[in-house]
């Protein structure tokens, strides 16, 4: 199992850079910036998809191993941050850095939760729809839904209106938020650890 973990981690980390390069290529391919005519280009695009699928499968295996195996977690943290726990002082510093990461991530998640629920719209309505002769309207709202899509994902109201400013939940996808959180955790852990070790 130790050997499997080691190979899994290596393939995941080295594959990450390959996936990033292939993702950039696939993006340019999909928007037509790269000519679709060449056979090798089509092959490369297909290869990018295959590599991404394999890497995703490995990521799932890695996530499961991370949940169940303590030694593997130590191995991963050493490889991701390039910092090893060599003695008791460094183990204490790891704990402090982890606490910082946990609390900042929690703050980040609370902020994202609030931003995802919050809605604000500033708009103008036609004179015949005006309330007390006022055509400018500011609308504030909170939308939270446990199982179904949030209010911000529902179709627009049918009232004829001219939006001046409108904010309905986070304008980014859930995959982007998850990626941001992963990056935040790795970067903030590295930063905290290096600052503590000075």
């Amino acid at each position, binding site marked *: 199992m130790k050997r499997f973990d080691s190979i899994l981690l290596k393939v995941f980390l080295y594959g990450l850079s390959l996936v990033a390069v292939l993702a950039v290529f696939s993006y340019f391919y999909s928007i037509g910036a790269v000519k679709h005519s060449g056979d090798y280009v089509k092959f490369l695009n297909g290869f990018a998809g295959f590599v991404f699928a394999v890497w995703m499968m490995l990521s799932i295996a890695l996530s499961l191993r991370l949940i169940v195996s303590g030694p593997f977690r130590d191995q991963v943290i050493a490889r991701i941050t390039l910092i090893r726990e*060599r*003695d*008791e*002082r*460094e183990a204490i510093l790891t704990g402090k850095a982890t606490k910082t990461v946990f609390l900042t991530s929690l703050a980040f998640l609370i902020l994202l939760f609030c931003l995802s629920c919050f809605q604000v719209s500033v708009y103008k309505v036609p004179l015949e729809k005006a309330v007390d002769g006022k055509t400018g309207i500011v609308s504030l709202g909170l939308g939270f839904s446990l199982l179904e899509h949030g209010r911000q994902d529902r179709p627009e109201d049918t009232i004829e209106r001219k939006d001046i400013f409108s904010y309905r939940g986070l304008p980014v996808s859930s995959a982007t938020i998850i990626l941001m959180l992963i990056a935040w955790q790795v970067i903030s852990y590295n930063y905290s650890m290096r600052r503590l070790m000075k």
Partner: protein
Amino acid sequence: MSKSLPQLRIINRLHVLRAERRITQEQLAKEIGVTRATIIAIEGGNYNPSLELAFRIACYFKTDINMIFSIKEEIK
């Protein structure tokens, strides 16, 4: 409410003992199984070692733990 306890400042004579025996920080670190950064932190008073490490240091210098680590003053 619990009574607030005074903070204890632990000082050590590690650098003195090391100088007496002409041992480098690197050598000491290797002998007691820690990094040189930890020795620097202990000598600089920035890190108080665990009881286990303190005993390991005392054993290495063949002396009593009180001869290396002591409480200098109480800061309120």
